[in-house]
Protein backbone atom coordinates (compact mmCIF):
# COMPACT_ATOMS: atom_id res chain seq x y z
CA UNK A 1 0.00 0.00 0.00
CA UNK A 2 1.34 3.37 -0.95
CA UNK A 3 1.53 6.35 1.32
CA UNK A 4 0.66 9.73 -0.06
CA UNK A 5 0.98 13.31 1.10
CA UNK A 6 0.08 16.26 -1.06
CA UNK A 7 1.87 19.54 -0.54
CA UNK A 8 -1.28 21.63 -0.59
CA UNK A 9 0.70 24.86 -0.52
CA UNK A 10 1.95 23.90 -3.96
CA UNK A 11 -1.35 22.47 -5.18
CA UNK A 12 -3.27 24.86 -7.42
CA UNK A 13 -6.29 22.71 -7.99
CA UNK A 14 -5.54 21.53 -11.54
CA UNK A 15 -7.27 18.29 -10.51
CA UNK A 16 -5.18 16.05 -12.76
CA UNK A 17 -4.85 13.54 -9.92
CA UNK A 18 -8.60 13.52 -9.32
CA UNK A 19 -9.27 12.90 -13.02
CA UNK A 20 -6.74 10.09 -13.30
CA UNK A 21 -7.14 8.27 -9.99
CA UNK A 22 -10.58 9.15 -8.65
CA UNK A 23 -10.42 6.28 -6.16
CA UNK A 24 -7.71 8.15 -4.24
CA UNK A 25 -8.06 11.84 -5.05
CA UNK A 26 -11.24 13.91 -5.00
CA UNK A 27 -11.97 17.55 -5.52
CA UNK A 28 -14.07 19.09 -2.81
CA UNK A 29 -15.59 22.12 -4.42
CA UNK A 30 -13.75 23.75 -7.31
CA UNK A 31 -10.29 23.86 -5.85
CA UNK A 32 -9.85 21.94 -2.62
CA UNK A 33 -8.33 18.48 -2.82
CA UNK A 34 -9.04 15.56 -0.52
CA UNK A 35 -7.17 12.29 -0.79
CA UNK A 36 -6.79 8.98 0.96
CA UNK A 37 -3.29 9.14 2.48
CA UNK A 38 -2.81 5.36 2.58
CA UNK A 39 -4.84 4.29 -0.35
CA UNK A 40 -5.31 0.74 -1.44
CA UNK A 41 -8.36 1.43 -3.56
CA UNK A 42 -6.48 1.74 -6.82
CA UNK A 43 -3.55 0.03 -8.49
CA UNK A 44 -0.14 1.64 -8.04
CA UNK A 45 -0.08 2.26 -11.78
CA UNK A 46 -2.96 4.72 -11.43
CA UNK A 47 -1.35 6.46 -8.50
CA UNK A 48 1.86 6.91 -10.47
CA UNK A 49 -0.08 8.27 -13.42
CA UNK A 50 -1.80 10.77 -11.14
CA UNK A 51 1.41 11.85 -9.41
CA UNK A 52 3.29 12.29 -12.68
CA UNK A 53 0.51 14.42 -14.14
CA UNK A 54 0.58 16.99 -11.35
CA UNK A 55 1.67 20.22 -13.04
CA UNK A 56 3.27 21.50 -9.84
CA UNK A 57 4.59 18.12 -8.67
CA UNK A 58 2.82 18.38 -5.33
CA UNK A 59 1.93 14.70 -4.91
CA UNK A 60 4.48 13.00 -2.69
CA UNK A 61 4.50 9.22 -2.78
CA UNK A 62 6.78 6.75 -0.99
CA UNK A 63 10.11 6.58 -2.67
CA UNK A 64 11.31 3.87 -0.28
CA UNK A 65 9.84 1.36 2.10
CA UNK A 66 10.11 2.56 5.69
CA UNK A 67 12.74 -0.12 6.35
CA UNK A 68 14.03 1.12 9.65
CA UNK A 69 10.80 2.17 11.31
CA UNK A 70 9.43 -1.12 10.07
CA UNK A 71 11.55 -2.87 12.68
CA UNK A 72 11.19 -0.24 15.37
CA UNK A 73 7.53 0.51 14.99
CA UNK A 74 5.95 -2.22 12.95
CA UNK A 75 2.81 -0.96 11.36
CA UNK A 76 2.46 1.41 14.27
CA UNK A 77 -1.10 0.58 14.89
CA UNK A 78 -2.70 1.30 18.19
CA UNK A 79 -0.74 -1.17 20.31
CA UNK A 80 1.77 1.45 21.25
CA UNK A 81 4.73 -0.48 19.97
CA UNK A 82 8.02 1.08 20.75
CA UNK A 83 11.54 0.05 20.38
CA UNK A 84 12.55 1.73 23.59
CA UNK A 85 12.17 -1.26 25.86
Amino acid at each position, binding site marked *: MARIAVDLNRCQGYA*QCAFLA*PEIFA*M*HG*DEALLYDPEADGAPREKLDRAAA*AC*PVQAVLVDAVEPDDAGTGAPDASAEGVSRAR
Partner: protein
Amino acid sequence: MTQTLLHQILDYANRADPYPIYKELRKTPVHHEGDGPYVVSTYYEIRSLLHDPRISSDARNLASNAADPLASEAPAEESTLPPGFLKLDPPEHDRLRRMTNRPFGPPHSPHRVDGMRGELRDIVTGLIDSIGDPERIDLVEQFSYPFPVTVICRLLGIPREDEARFHVWADTLAASLDPDPDADTVGKGKDAQDARMQLGMYLAGLIEERRKNPGDDMLSQLATAKGDDGPMTTMELLSTAALLLIAGHETTVNLITNGMLTLLRNPDVLQRLRADPRLAVPIVEELLRFEPPVQLVPQRTTLADVEVRGVTIPKGAALWLVLASGNRDPRRFDDPDRFDPDRPDIQHLGLGSGIHSCFGAPLARLETQFALAELARRLENPRLLEDPPPYRQNAVLRGPRHLHLACDGIRP
Protein backbone atom coordinates in the same frame (compact mmCIF):
# COMPACT_ATOMS: atom_id res chain seq x y z
CA MET B 1 17.20 41.02 -46.12
CA THR B 2 17.64 39.72 -42.59
CA GLN B 3 14.47 38.37 -41.08
CA THR B 4 13.33 39.42 -37.66
CA LEU B 5 13.26 36.59 -35.14
CA LEU B 6 9.50 36.80 -35.20
CA HIS B 7 9.38 36.20 -38.91
CA GLN B 8 11.82 33.38 -38.54
CA ILE B 9 9.42 31.70 -36.13
CA LEU B 10 6.62 32.10 -38.62
CA ASP B 11 8.76 31.12 -41.61
CA TYR B 12 7.71 27.66 -42.77
CA ALA B 13 11.34 26.84 -43.58
CA ASN B 14 11.96 26.65 -39.82
CA ARG B 15 8.96 24.56 -38.93
CA ALA B 16 10.82 21.27 -38.56
CA ASP B 17 13.22 22.72 -36.02
CA PRO B 18 12.30 26.04 -34.47
CA TYR B 19 14.43 25.41 -31.40
CA PRO B 20 17.61 27.21 -32.56
CA ILE B 21 15.48 30.33 -33.11
CA TYR B 22 14.04 30.03 -29.62
CA LYS B 23 17.57 29.75 -28.26
CA GLU B 24 18.44 32.97 -30.01
CA LEU B 25 15.24 34.51 -28.73
CA ARG B 26 16.04 33.66 -25.10
CA LYS B 27 19.10 35.93 -25.25
CA THR B 28 16.51 38.72 -24.94
CA PRO B 29 13.91 37.32 -22.56
CA VAL B 30 11.48 40.07 -23.54
CA HIS B 31 11.93 40.57 -27.25
CA HIS B 32 10.31 43.44 -29.10
CA GLU B 33 10.80 44.64 -32.65
CA GLY B 34 9.07 47.53 -34.36
CA ASP B 35 5.37 47.55 -33.67
CA GLY B 36 5.25 43.78 -33.19
CA PRO B 37 4.23 41.88 -30.10
CA TYR B 38 6.34 41.58 -26.96
CA VAL B 39 7.73 38.06 -27.11
CA VAL B 40 8.63 36.36 -23.82
CA SER B 41 10.73 33.23 -24.18
CA THR B 42 12.28 32.27 -20.83
CA TYR B 43 10.76 29.77 -18.38
CA TYR B 44 10.39 31.74 -15.18
CA GLU B 45 9.14 34.87 -16.90
CA ILE B 46 6.53 32.94 -18.88
CA ARG B 47 5.39 31.11 -15.78
CA SER B 48 5.05 34.38 -13.86
CA LEU B 49 3.03 35.99 -16.63
CA LEU B 50 0.68 33.00 -16.84
CA HIS B 51 -0.23 33.72 -13.20
CA ASP B 52 -0.25 37.50 -13.54
CA PRO B 53 -3.69 39.10 -13.17
CA ARG B 54 -2.56 42.12 -15.16
CA ILE B 55 -2.52 39.90 -18.25
CA SER B 56 -5.76 39.53 -20.19
CA SER B 57 -6.86 36.89 -22.69
CA ASP B 58 -9.63 39.11 -23.98
CA ALA B 59 -8.76 40.70 -27.33
CA ARG B 60 -10.99 43.65 -26.50
CA ASN B 61 -8.24 44.85 -24.16
CA LEU B 62 -5.72 45.01 -26.96
CA ALA B 63 -4.75 48.54 -27.98
CA SER B 64 -6.08 49.21 -31.48
CA ASN B 65 -2.60 49.88 -32.84
CA ALA B 66 -1.10 46.60 -31.59
CA ALA B 67 -0.05 44.69 -34.67
CA ASP B 68 -0.72 40.97 -34.91
CA PRO B 69 1.63 39.20 -37.31
CA LEU B 70 -0.51 36.08 -36.93
CA ALA B 71 -3.62 37.88 -38.14
CA SER B 72 -3.25 36.48 -41.63
CA GLU B 73 -2.85 32.99 -40.20
CA ALA B 74 -5.80 33.09 -37.87
CA PRO B 75 -8.96 31.48 -39.15
CA ALA B 76 -11.87 33.78 -39.76
CA GLU B 77 -13.79 33.97 -36.51
CA GLU B 78 -17.33 32.77 -36.59
CA SER B 79 -18.72 36.23 -36.01
CA THR B 80 -22.08 34.98 -34.81
CA LEU B 81 -20.65 32.98 -31.90
CA PRO B 82 -19.45 34.59 -28.67
CA PRO B 83 -15.80 33.87 -27.80
CA GLY B 84 -15.09 30.61 -25.97
CA PHE B 85 -13.59 30.73 -22.48
CA LEU B 86 -10.11 30.47 -23.94
CA LYS B 87 -10.46 34.09 -25.02
CA LEU B 88 -12.24 35.44 -21.96
CA ASP B 89 -11.12 36.77 -18.60
CA PRO B 90 -12.68 36.09 -15.21
CA PRO B 91 -15.39 36.19 -14.13
CA GLU B 92 -16.92 35.11 -17.49
CA HIS B 93 -14.06 32.69 -18.10
CA ASP B 94 -14.41 31.10 -14.70
CA ARG B 95 -18.15 30.73 -15.01
CA LEU B 96 -18.06 29.11 -18.46
CA ARG B 97 -15.14 26.87 -17.61
CA ARG B 98 -16.82 25.75 -14.41
CA MET B 99 -20.00 24.95 -16.30
CA THR B 100 -18.12 23.08 -19.00
CA ASN B 101 -16.20 21.17 -16.39
CA ARG B 102 -19.32 20.10 -14.56
CA PRO B 103 -20.11 17.16 -16.87
CA PHE B 104 -16.43 16.54 -17.66
CA GLY B 105 -14.45 16.32 -14.46
CA PRO B 106 -14.32 16.46 -10.69
CA PRO B 107 -15.96 17.45 -8.44
CA HIS B 108 -19.24 16.70 -10.27
CA SER B 109 -18.10 14.10 -12.81
CA PRO B 110 -14.99 12.50 -11.34
CA HIS B 111 -15.34 9.27 -13.31
CA ARG B 112 -15.92 10.66 -16.80
CA VAL B 113 -12.33 10.49 -18.04
CA ASP B 114 -11.33 7.50 -15.93
CA GLY B 115 -14.39 5.71 -17.25
CA MET B 116 -13.21 6.19 -20.84
CA ARG B 117 -10.06 4.13 -20.39
CA GLY B 118 -11.58 0.98 -21.85
CA GLU B 119 -13.03 2.87 -24.77
CA LEU B 120 -9.73 4.63 -25.45
CA ARG B 121 -7.94 1.29 -25.54
CA ASP B 122 -10.54 -0.13 -27.89
CA ILE B 123 -10.25 2.78 -30.30
CA VAL B 124 -6.45 2.49 -30.28
CA THR B 125 -6.65 -1.24 -30.90
CA GLY B 126 -9.14 -0.79 -33.73
CA LEU B 127 -7.05 1.84 -35.48
CA ILE B 128 -3.85 -0.19 -35.28
CA ASP B 129 -5.70 -3.31 -36.44
CA SER B 130 -6.82 -1.52 -39.56
CA ILE B 131 -3.44 -0.10 -40.53
CA GLY B 132 -3.02 -2.43 -43.50
CA ASP B 133 0.30 -2.38 -45.36
CA PRO B 134 2.99 -2.18 -42.66
CA GLU B 135 5.54 -0.89 -45.10
CA ARG B 136 3.60 2.24 -45.95
CA ILE B 137 2.03 3.83 -42.91
CA ASP B 138 1.06 7.45 -42.60
CA LEU B 139 0.65 7.65 -38.86
CA VAL B 140 -1.14 10.99 -39.05
CA GLU B 141 -3.83 9.88 -41.48
CA GLN B 142 -4.22 6.38 -40.12
CA PHE B 143 -3.90 6.93 -36.41
CA SER B 144 -3.11 10.30 -34.82
CA TYR B 145 -5.84 12.08 -36.72
CA PRO B 146 -8.84 9.77 -36.34
CA PHE B 147 -8.13 8.87 -32.70
CA PRO B 148 -8.83 12.18 -30.91
CA VAL B 149 -11.76 13.12 -33.12
CA THR B 150 -13.40 9.78 -32.34
CA VAL B 151 -12.78 10.40 -28.65
CA ILE B 152 -14.39 13.83 -28.81
CA CYS B 153 -17.40 12.37 -30.63
CA ARG B 154 -17.85 9.80 -27.88
CA LEU B 155 -17.36 12.41 -25.19
CA LEU B 156 -19.91 14.79 -26.65
CA GLY B 157 -22.25 11.95 -27.50
CA ILE B 158 -22.29 12.31 -31.28
CA PRO B 159 -24.32 9.34 -32.57
CA ARG B 160 -22.07 6.72 -34.14
CA GLU B 161 -23.81 7.04 -37.50
CA ASP B 162 -22.90 10.75 -37.60
CA GLU B 163 -19.25 10.34 -36.66
CA ALA B 164 -18.11 10.23 -40.29
CA ARG B 165 -19.76 13.56 -41.05
CA PHE B 166 -18.25 14.99 -37.91
CA HIS B 167 -14.80 13.85 -39.02
CA VAL B 168 -15.20 15.69 -42.33
CA TRP B 169 -16.09 18.95 -40.62
CA ALA B 170 -13.24 18.61 -38.16
CA ASP B 171 -10.94 17.91 -41.08
CA THR B 172 -12.04 21.01 -42.96
CA LEU B 173 -11.74 23.22 -39.89
CA ALA B 174 -8.29 21.87 -39.13
CA ALA B 175 -7.21 22.62 -42.68
CA SER B 176 -8.43 26.18 -42.28
CA LEU B 177 -6.24 26.51 -39.19
CA ASP B 178 -3.34 25.67 -41.41
CA PRO B 179 -3.34 27.92 -44.45
CA ASP B 180 -1.07 26.74 -47.19
CA PRO B 181 0.22 29.87 -48.94
CA ASP B 182 0.24 28.10 -52.33
CA ALA B 183 -3.28 26.81 -52.06
CA ASP B 184 -6.53 28.42 -52.97
CA THR B 185 -7.08 30.32 -49.71
CA VAL B 186 -10.30 31.91 -50.79
CA GLY B 187 -11.87 28.59 -51.67
CA LYS B 188 -10.51 27.06 -48.48
CA GLY B 189 -11.90 29.91 -46.42
CA LYS B 190 -15.28 29.29 -47.93
CA ASP B 191 -15.03 25.55 -47.23
CA ALA B 192 -14.23 26.29 -43.63
CA GLN B 193 -17.08 28.71 -43.33
CA ASP B 194 -19.44 26.13 -44.79
CA ALA B 195 -18.11 23.48 -42.44
CA ARG B 196 -18.58 25.79 -39.47
CA MET B 197 -22.10 26.53 -40.54
CA GLN B 198 -22.98 22.90 -41.06
CA LEU B 199 -21.33 21.85 -37.81
CA GLY B 200 -23.14 24.62 -35.96
CA MET B 201 -26.48 23.64 -37.40
CA TYR B 202 -25.84 19.99 -36.73
CA LEU B 203 -24.87 20.67 -33.10
CA ALA B 204 -27.81 23.03 -32.61
CA GLY B 205 -30.14 20.26 -33.77
CA LEU B 206 -28.43 17.70 -31.57
CA ILE B 207 -28.60 20.02 -28.55
CA GLU B 208 -32.33 20.46 -29.16
CA GLU B 209 -32.72 16.70 -29.32
CA ARG B 210 -30.64 16.16 -26.16
CA ARG B 211 -32.67 18.72 -24.25
CA LYS B 212 -35.71 16.54 -24.88
CA ASN B 213 -34.01 13.18 -24.40
CA PRO B 214 -30.88 13.72 -22.36
CA GLY B 215 -28.32 10.93 -22.22
CA ASP B 216 -25.21 10.41 -20.14
CA ASP B 217 -23.01 12.26 -22.65
CA MET B 218 -21.42 15.65 -22.11
CA LEU B 219 -23.57 17.56 -24.57
CA SER B 220 -26.78 16.36 -22.91
CA GLN B 221 -25.48 17.35 -19.52
CA LEU B 222 -24.30 20.75 -20.73
CA ALA B 223 -27.67 21.33 -22.34
CA THR B 224 -29.62 20.43 -19.23
CA ALA B 225 -27.25 21.69 -16.51
CA LYS B 226 -28.82 22.99 -13.36
CA GLY B 227 -25.74 24.04 -11.39
CA ASP B 228 -25.17 27.18 -9.34
CA ASP B 229 -24.11 28.98 -12.48
CA GLY B 230 -27.40 28.32 -14.23
CA PRO B 231 -27.74 26.79 -17.70
CA MET B 232 -25.63 27.77 -20.70
CA THR B 233 -27.36 29.60 -23.48
CA THR B 234 -27.49 27.78 -26.80
CA MET B 235 -24.95 30.24 -28.19
CA GLU B 236 -22.59 29.62 -25.28
CA LEU B 237 -23.05 25.92 -25.72
CA LEU B 238 -22.28 26.06 -29.42
CA SER B 239 -19.19 28.13 -28.89
CA THR B 240 -18.02 25.83 -26.10
CA ALA B 241 -18.55 22.73 -28.21
CA ALA B 242 -16.65 24.32 -31.08
CA LEU B 243 -13.82 25.22 -28.68
CA LEU B 244 -13.61 21.67 -27.36
CA LEU B 245 -13.53 20.30 -30.87
CA ILE B 246 -10.91 22.63 -32.28
CA ALA B 247 -8.69 23.13 -29.24
CA GLY B 248 -8.91 19.51 -28.16
CA HIS B 249 -8.41 17.90 -31.49
CA GLU B 250 -5.51 19.41 -33.36
CA THR B 251 -3.35 19.57 -30.25
CA THR B 252 -3.79 15.91 -29.44
CA VAL B 253 -3.07 14.89 -33.04
CA ASN B 254 0.20 16.76 -32.84
CA LEU B 255 1.10 15.45 -29.41
CA ILE B 256 0.71 11.84 -30.55
CA THR B 257 2.53 12.39 -33.83
CA ASN B 258 5.35 14.35 -32.20
CA GLY B 259 5.52 11.55 -29.66
CA MET B 260 6.04 8.80 -32.18
CA LEU B 261 8.49 10.93 -34.12
CA THR B 262 10.48 11.60 -30.97
CA LEU B 263 10.47 7.93 -29.99
CA LEU B 264 11.69 6.91 -33.43
CA ARG B 265 14.49 9.43 -33.07
CA ASN B 266 15.30 7.98 -29.63
CA PRO B 267 15.23 4.22 -30.24
CA ASP B 268 16.60 3.41 -26.77
CA VAL B 269 13.56 5.05 -25.19
CA LEU B 270 11.25 3.30 -27.66
CA GLN B 271 12.85 -0.01 -26.72
CA ARG B 272 12.35 0.69 -23.01
CA LEU B 273 8.72 1.63 -23.60
CA ARG B 274 8.14 -1.63 -25.47
CA ALA B 275 9.48 -3.52 -22.47
CA ASP B 276 7.61 -1.46 -19.91
CA PRO B 277 4.43 0.33 -20.95
CA ARG B 278 4.38 2.24 -17.64
CA LEU B 279 7.19 4.35 -19.05
CA ALA B 280 4.55 6.03 -21.25
CA VAL B 281 3.64 8.19 -18.25
CA PRO B 282 6.95 10.06 -17.86
CA ILE B 283 7.47 9.93 -21.63
CA VAL B 284 4.33 11.97 -22.19
CA GLU B 285 5.32 14.54 -19.57
CA GLU B 286 8.77 14.90 -21.11
CA LEU B 287 7.17 15.09 -24.54
CA LEU B 288 4.98 17.97 -23.39
CA ARG B 289 8.18 19.72 -22.45
CA PHE B 290 10.25 18.68 -25.43
CA GLU B 291 7.74 19.04 -28.30
CA PRO B 292 4.68 20.85 -26.96
CA PRO B 293 1.71 20.86 -29.35
CA VAL B 294 1.00 24.51 -28.59
CA GLN B 295 4.27 26.28 -29.24
CA LEU B 296 3.21 29.69 -28.09
CA VAL B 297 0.28 31.57 -26.60
CA PRO B 298 -0.27 34.50 -28.95
CA GLN B 299 -3.43 36.14 -27.66
CA ARG B 300 -2.59 37.80 -24.39
CA THR B 301 -2.45 41.49 -23.65
CA THR B 302 -1.57 43.76 -20.74
CA LEU B 303 -4.11 45.66 -18.64
CA ALA B 304 -1.37 47.87 -17.19
CA ASP B 305 2.28 48.62 -17.83
CA VAL B 306 4.08 45.45 -16.77
CA GLU B 307 7.80 45.32 -16.13
CA VAL B 308 9.53 42.06 -16.98
CA ARG B 309 13.30 41.70 -16.67
CA GLY B 310 13.78 45.46 -16.92
CA VAL B 311 11.54 45.88 -19.96
CA THR B 312 8.28 47.77 -19.58
CA ILE B 313 5.54 46.17 -21.63
CA PRO B 314 3.02 48.96 -22.11
CA LYS B 315 -0.66 48.65 -21.36
CA GLY B 316 -2.61 47.19 -24.26
CA ALA B 317 0.44 45.58 -25.90
CA ALA B 318 0.18 42.25 -27.67
CA LEU B 319 2.07 39.58 -25.79
CA TRP B 320 3.38 36.23 -26.97
CA LEU B 321 4.41 33.62 -24.46
CA VAL B 322 6.61 31.09 -26.23
CA LEU B 323 5.92 27.99 -24.16
CA ALA B 324 8.12 25.76 -26.31
CA SER B 325 11.06 28.05 -25.70
CA GLY B 326 10.50 28.23 -21.95
CA ASN B 327 10.49 24.44 -21.96
CA ARG B 328 14.02 24.47 -23.38
CA ASP B 329 15.34 27.14 -21.01
CA PRO B 330 18.63 25.86 -19.57
CA ARG B 331 18.09 27.97 -16.44
CA ARG B 332 15.25 25.60 -15.61
CA PHE B 333 16.09 22.31 -17.31
CA ASP B 334 19.54 20.76 -17.47
CA ASP B 335 20.59 19.75 -20.95
CA PRO B 336 17.23 20.96 -22.25
CA ASP B 337 17.63 19.76 -25.84
CA ARG B 338 17.88 16.15 -24.72
CA PHE B 339 14.74 14.03 -24.60
CA ASP B 340 14.97 12.38 -21.22
CA PRO B 341 11.91 10.78 -19.63
CA ASP B 342 13.95 10.08 -16.47
CA ARG B 343 14.28 13.80 -15.83
CA PRO B 344 13.20 14.63 -12.28
CA ASP B 345 10.67 17.35 -11.58
CA ILE B 346 9.37 17.98 -15.11
CA GLN B 347 7.21 21.04 -14.48
CA HIS B 348 6.78 21.90 -18.13
CA LEU B 349 4.73 24.66 -19.68
CA GLY B 350 3.37 22.37 -22.38
CA LEU B 351 -0.21 22.60 -21.16
CA GLY B 352 0.08 26.17 -19.99
CA SER B 353 -0.38 27.14 -16.35
CA GLY B 354 -2.76 29.29 -14.34
CA ILE B 355 -6.46 29.62 -15.00
CA HIS B 356 -6.22 28.93 -18.75
CA SER B 357 -4.23 25.71 -18.38
CA CYS B 358 -5.39 23.07 -20.84
CA PHE B 359 -8.96 22.03 -20.15
CA GLY B 360 -8.64 18.61 -21.76
CA ALA B 361 -5.25 17.83 -20.23
CA PRO B 362 -6.20 14.58 -18.44
CA LEU B 363 -7.80 13.18 -21.57
CA ALA B 364 -4.86 14.23 -23.77
CA ARG B 365 -2.50 12.56 -21.32
CA LEU B 366 -4.38 9.27 -21.28
CA GLU B 367 -4.88 9.25 -25.05
CA THR B 368 -1.20 9.84 -25.72
CA GLN B 369 -0.01 7.40 -23.06
CA PHE B 370 -2.21 4.61 -24.44
CA ALA B 371 -1.38 5.48 -28.04
CA LEU B 372 2.39 5.50 -27.62
CA ALA B 373 2.50 2.40 -25.42
CA GLU B 374 0.40 0.42 -27.90
CA LEU B 375 2.25 1.67 -30.98
CA ALA B 376 5.54 0.75 -29.34
CA ARG B 377 4.27 -2.71 -28.46
CA ARG B 378 2.59 -3.56 -31.74
CA LEU B 379 4.70 -2.03 -34.51
CA GLU B 380 7.52 -4.39 -35.27
CA ASN B 381 10.82 -2.68 -35.89
CA PRO B 382 9.29 0.65 -36.92
CA ARG B 383 11.40 3.19 -38.81
CA LEU B 384 10.95 6.66 -40.23
CA LEU B 385 10.78 6.87 -44.02
CA GLU B 386 11.31 10.61 -43.98
CA ASP B 387 13.08 12.72 -41.38
CA PRO B 388 12.18 15.46 -40.89
CA PRO B 389 8.62 14.77 -41.96
CA PRO B 390 6.56 17.37 -43.81
CA TYR B 391 5.02 19.79 -41.30
CA ARG B 392 1.76 21.67 -41.23
CA GLN B 393 2.02 25.38 -41.94
CA ASN B 394 0.84 26.41 -38.51
CA ALA B 395 3.62 27.77 -36.28
CA VAL B 396 1.46 27.81 -33.17
CA LEU B 397 -0.19 24.39 -33.36
CA ARG B 398 2.94 22.83 -34.73
CA GLY B 399 3.12 19.23 -35.91
CA PRO B 400 3.81 16.96 -38.87
CA ARG B 401 1.27 16.84 -41.69
CA HIS B 402 2.29 13.28 -42.44
CA LEU B 403 4.49 10.81 -40.62
CA HIS B 404 5.54 8.10 -43.01
CA LEU B 405 6.74 4.92 -41.33
CA ALA B 406 7.49 1.40 -42.27
CA CYS B 407 7.61 -1.62 -40.03
CA ASP B 408 8.12 -5.37 -40.41
CA GLY B 409 4.65 -6.23 -39.27
CA ILE B 410 1.92 -5.51 -36.78
CA ARG B 411 1.87 -7.66 -33.68
CA PRO B 412 -1.54 -8.84 -32.52
